[in-house]
Structure formats: structure tokens, C-alpha cells
């Protein structure tokens, strides 16, 4: 097997990969450690805020008159915070932020596909619900949540976000 060409096999330790022209090392130890510490604290703080919002949503739900809009806004906030967390993990922990700009683009640009992926799937799921509520009364009656612990006489048309 050893006659097979393997680009990594014939290298001295100095030039591990011929296609790589230099290795950038983290500038200096203390600065790097500081950056990692900062990111860790940041991630923890964001997580704690997320948990606080989660509990806030819980309290709102327990209350007499859940405010659907407020819940929706809280959920939106959590989504944004999650994206911030993802940004820090990818850019600092995975060192993507230290790579060449074009490399960053090859990762970030394809992720844009998720936008339409999510919109289309979720919109169609929502449409499926509306269609069934309209044409399948049994589905509607058996699954529509009761309005504050008593079955609503006239079920409200479901809105997209707040259907806990």
C-alpha cells in the first residue's frame, strides 16, 4: 500500500501541508487566554439571559391573561440571542474569525440557504394547520386548546407564533 501517493506522507515536520504557505499562531498566550475567558463569560451570560426569558414565558403562561404578543417578542429575543451565541462559538472557538475572508464566505454564504429553507417549511406547516382547521372540523375541535381551562365556544383563528 505504501507506494500510493499520499501528500502527507512525504513531508518533513516543517512543511506539513505543501498547499499551506504559513501557519498563523495565536498572537500571544495571554491575549488568547483573555479572549477565551471573555467569550466564555459572554456565552454564560447570554445563556443565563435566555433562561431568564424562558422562565418569564413560563410565568406569563401561568398568569390569567397570557399576552401572546409579549410571548412572541420574548421568543424572538431568545432566537436572536441564540444566533449571537452561535456567532461566538463559530468565530472564536472554531477560529473561523481568524481565517481568510474568502474562507469565511464559503461557510457563511451557503448558510443563507437556510433562510428560504426555514420560511418555506414553516409557512407550509402553518398552511397545513389552517387548511385542516378549515376542512377537518374534528381536527379543529379535538386539538384546539381550551381557552383558560374551559372549552371555547368559538375557537379563535390560530395565529402563527403564539399557540402554546
Amino acid at each position, binding site marked *: 500500500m505504501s*507506494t*500510493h*501517493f499520499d*501528500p502527507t506522507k512525504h513531508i518533513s515536520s516543517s512543511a506539513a501541508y505543501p498547499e499551506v*504557505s*504559513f501557519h498563523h499562531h495565536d498572537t500571544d498566550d495571554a491575549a488568547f487566554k483573555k479572549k477565551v475567558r471573555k467569550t466564555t463569560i459572554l456565552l454564560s451570560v447570554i445563556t443565563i439571559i435566555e433562561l431568564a426569558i424562558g422562565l418569564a414565558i413560563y410565568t406569563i403562561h401561568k398568569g390569567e391573561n397570557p399576552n401572546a404578543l409579549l410571548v412572541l417578542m420574548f421568543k424572538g429575543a431568545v432566537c436572536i440571542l441564540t444566533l449571537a451565541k452561535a456567532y461566538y462559538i463559530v468565530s472564536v472557538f472554531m477560529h473561523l474569525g481568524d481565517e481568510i475572508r474568502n474562507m469565511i464566505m464559503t461557510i457563511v454564504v451557503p448558510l443563507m440557504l437556510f433562510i428560504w429553507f426555514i420560511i418555506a417549511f414553516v409557512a407550509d406547516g402553518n*398552511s*397545513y394547520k389552517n387548511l385542516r382547521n378549515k376542512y377537518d372540523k374534528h381536527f379543529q375541535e379535538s386539538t384546539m386548546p381550551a381557552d383558560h381551562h374551559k372549552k371555547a365556544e368559538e375557537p379563535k383563528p390560530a395565529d402563527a407564533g403564539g399557540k402554546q
Partner: protein
Amino acid sequence: MSEALSVHPEIVTTHDVHHDEHGGGHHKETFISKYIFSMDHKTIGKQFLITGIIWAIVGGLFSVLFRLQLGYPGQSFPILETFFGHWAKGGQIQPEFYYALVTMHGTVLVFFVLTAGLSGTFANILIPLQIGARDMASPMLNMLSYWFFFLASVIMMSSLFIQTGPASGGWTIYPPLSALGQASDGSKLGMDLWLVSMAMFIVSSLLGGLNYISTILNMRTKGMSMTRMPLTIWAMFFTAVLGVLSFPVLLSGAILLLFDRNLGTSFFLSDIVVNGEVLPNEGGSAILFQHLFWFLGHPEVYIILLPAMGMVSEIMSVNSRKPIFGYMAMLGSLFAIAILAFLVWAHHMFVTGLNPFLGSIFVLLTLLIAVPSAIKVFNWLTTLWRGNIRFTPAMLFAIGFVSLFISGGLTGIFLGNSTIDIHLHDTMFVVAHFHIVMGVASFFGMFAGVYHWFPKMFGRYLNNTLGYIHFWVTMVGAYLIFWPMHYEGLAGMPRRYLDKSGWVSFNQFGDLDKMITVVSIIVFAVQLMFVFNFFYSIFKGRKVTTQNPWGANTLEWTTPIRPGHGNWVGEIPEVHRWPYDYGKDGRDFIPQTEPIGANESKH
């Protein structure tokens, strides 16, 4: 300084390799390491090709069998019973058999032949040779890619021989039919094997795709900038990107379907009564599976088509002795197609209960594909225009590709409109459309590639006479088979039906269907002739005596006639120009390795 330093290790390294191969006698390649578990990209490419050919024979044979049923419903063919036993009781194809044949025909040809057999073959053979690399970035993973494909093949093949038969819910395996074993025989064990085989196939495609992408990005020889790459490589690049980003979505769908089948979940199942039994499954959505499937399924169409487009562009330029017309436009349209491929999946689902408003957005995005497609067609035609055309078999197939792409592509515009699709959906019109534009056209691209690069692969030529017969019969046959299907479809004749003779309105097509069946048998026979030509020529074909038999510019023709592992003897050549300098400054062709002359005109 960094540039000089960065390049030298590459050259020094590769030089070492060369010495290792020819000087060092202490490594002996065994038969197993050279032909079976080979890590040479060329051998792996040939493995993909030959496995693909075997699958193509199987898949093609299936189509002949179900065409017998469609052309001669109710007629008995005793020989079928001899071979297939109770699947063809009394010499008649049984319904379960028919659906298994249709399903496996689609699965085998779409995935095993036109994905693995096409892009697996030519990406492997052409990428390192045309960008100037010794091998793929990771020869090891490349080898694994083939062997995962082989494993997938073994599993799929074994499903043909089990008691309840292979999957038979159509190649799109829509639940609930595919999810419920009690619904049909083909949804029993055969369906599980289908899903497992496909999971292996996805692993194979992923390993291959990652390798193709990182090889193209990282391993180009000096001077081979991205815009000096032949269009074949660009096409393979986008193909790999499509595969890497879309196959995982099918994997998710397959895993969820496996759970629904075996673990009692309800991802895709809800409100079902089967054989009088009310199933407890609730809350799932069958439309969701179709979304997941077509999120792969649509890019898959381009995974099949793009390599053919790339090879056709290259072959057409070489054999017209003219530069490809509009290189950047070709590249841009490939890119546009690759992006749009991800955005249009639900145009396969207009009549499923998809939200009509959402559908209208998908119509818009779908029709946008016509723009880059048209750009490509015009560029091919203008490449031919006033060319000094050499009608080699490869060139004929390339021209045939363009013809098929036009006639199949135009019907795509019909189907892309949701209102017209309501009438045409699931009719023979759809069958005609996708067979011409994706099936036959991609096959033509593949044949063109095989005829053109056979000398590089095996150091011999394919027989030309057989090649011409192959082309003309296939070309005429393809149109005779699929063109009439448009009329059947417009008249409302559904696809996938076992026997349409019960409908008075379809009786007028009885003779037409017989004709289609007869022609498809002839075309299948001619493909067998091609297979004979292929294997015969590997051993007995006319030998290649010059390094560059087609007078082409690209790097693969600077290697020895039968290149060893590592491709070039000595250093990898440096590239100084784009690959399409044909008929320039009074010269027939100028290879990529030739430095730009002092008084050379710009292209």
C-alpha cells in the same frame, strides 16, 4: 517571500513522490492494492464507471420489462415466468412486480447510474488530471467513497432477491405507502433495505463530494487559477457542492421514515386507515416528507445534469476547434443554476395541498432557471457556429445533448407553472419531460465523456463505427420513445398505471405504446452493443499512439499515454493560460502549459 516559499515545498514534495514510485523497488503493488482497494483516482473512477454500467444494464432491463406490460397489457410472455416465477405468473407481469420494476428503475438510474456512475466517474478521473494534481486531496477517503457506494449497491441488489421484493412505492418513496408494511409487499423489508442502502449511498456521496471540493480548491497546480479551469471542473465543483448540501436533507428524511416504520413515531403519518385497521398514528404530515425529499430531489436533478453540461462544453470546444463561447457566462450560469437548484424544490408538489401562495413563489423561482439554461444553450450553439467541427462519436453525443436539453427543457416551463401542472401532474407528459432533459440528456453527456476520455482511461480507442451506430440509434430512439409520451400526457394519460386499456379515451394510444415498447427494446439492445464495445476496446481497441489524440489544451493530455499513480513523470506542469485557446493567432490549439507569447493577441 511567502509565495516563493509556499510553492517550492509542493514541487519538492511531488518530485519525491515520483522518485518513490519509480526508484523505490521495495514497495510492490499487489493486485488488491492496485485494482481492488486502489487509492489511485483513475482506478477509482473506472470502478465507479464499471459499477455504473452494471447498474445501468439492470435498470435498463427493468424498463424493458415494464414497457412490455405497458405496450402489451394482458399479453402473456411465458419466458418471464421462467425467469421471475410468481412475480410473472402465467407470463404476465404482476402488479407488485410492475411497481417494483418502476421503483427500482428510477432509483437505480437516478442514484446509482447517473449520480455515482456519472459524477463519481468523471469527477474522479478528470479533477486531478485537469487541475494538475497527483491525486485527490485524500486518496483514502476517495477509496472509501467507492466502497460505501459498493456497499449501498450490495444492499440495494440484495433487496431484489428477498421474498417480499424490493421497495415498490415509486423512487420518491412517499409515505404513508412507503411507511406501512401492511400497505404493500414492497413496503416491507425491501423498503428498509432501500433506506439503509440510500444512507450508505449518501455517505459515499459525501466522502466523494468533500474530496472533490477540497481538491479543486487546494490542489490546483501553479498558474491554474479558478478562471483557468476547464468548465468540466467547474461543473464538477458545483455538483459536489450541491451534493454536500442537499444529500444530508434526504438523510434526515430517510432516518425519520425509518423511525416511522420501525419505532412507532408519527413524523409523516396521521389519520390512516389501512385494510380496515385504524392506525393510532397522529399529527404527522406526509407533505413534510415530500418537502424533505425534494429538497434533495431537485438539486439531485442538477447533480445529474451539471457534470454532463461541463463535459459537453469541453468536448464541444475541442471538437469545434473554437474557444468556448462566453466562458464567464457559462460559469455564471452554472453558478446560478446551482443556487436556484436549492430554491425551487416545491414545484414537484403543486398538487399535494401545498399552500397555493407559497406555490406561486416557487413558480417564479422555477421559471428563473430558464435564464441560465438559455444562456448555456446559446453559448453551445455559438460555440458550434462557424466551427471547424470534427464529428467524433463524442462530439455527436455532445450535440445530441444540446438537442435533448432544449426539447426537454422547454417542457419544463410548462410544468413549472402551477396552473398548467394541475392538468399535467403525474401524467406521461412528466415522464417524457424528465426522461429527455435529465435521463437521456445526462446519458448523452456521459457517453460523450466516455468516448472522449476513453483513450486517457485505457490507452485505447473505442470502436468508431459502433460508436456512430450507437449514437444514431440512441438519438432517434430516444425521441421516438419519449416524444409521443407528451401527447399521451396532454390527453391526460396517467403515469405509473399498470394497465390503461380499461379507459376508452386512452385506447387511441394502444398502438403508440406498442411502438414505444419496440423502440425501447431496440435502444436497449444498442446500449448492450456499447457495453460490448466498451469492454472489448479495453483489451482489443486501437491503441493510442500520441499523447494528445484530440489536439486538446487541457492538462490531462500532457500526461503519459498510460499515466501511473501520480499522473505526471517529473514535475507537474505549470499553467499559463485558459484552456480554450483554439484557432488563435493562426494556430490550431495552444496547450495550457505554453507561456503567453510576446505578441500574442488577447482572447
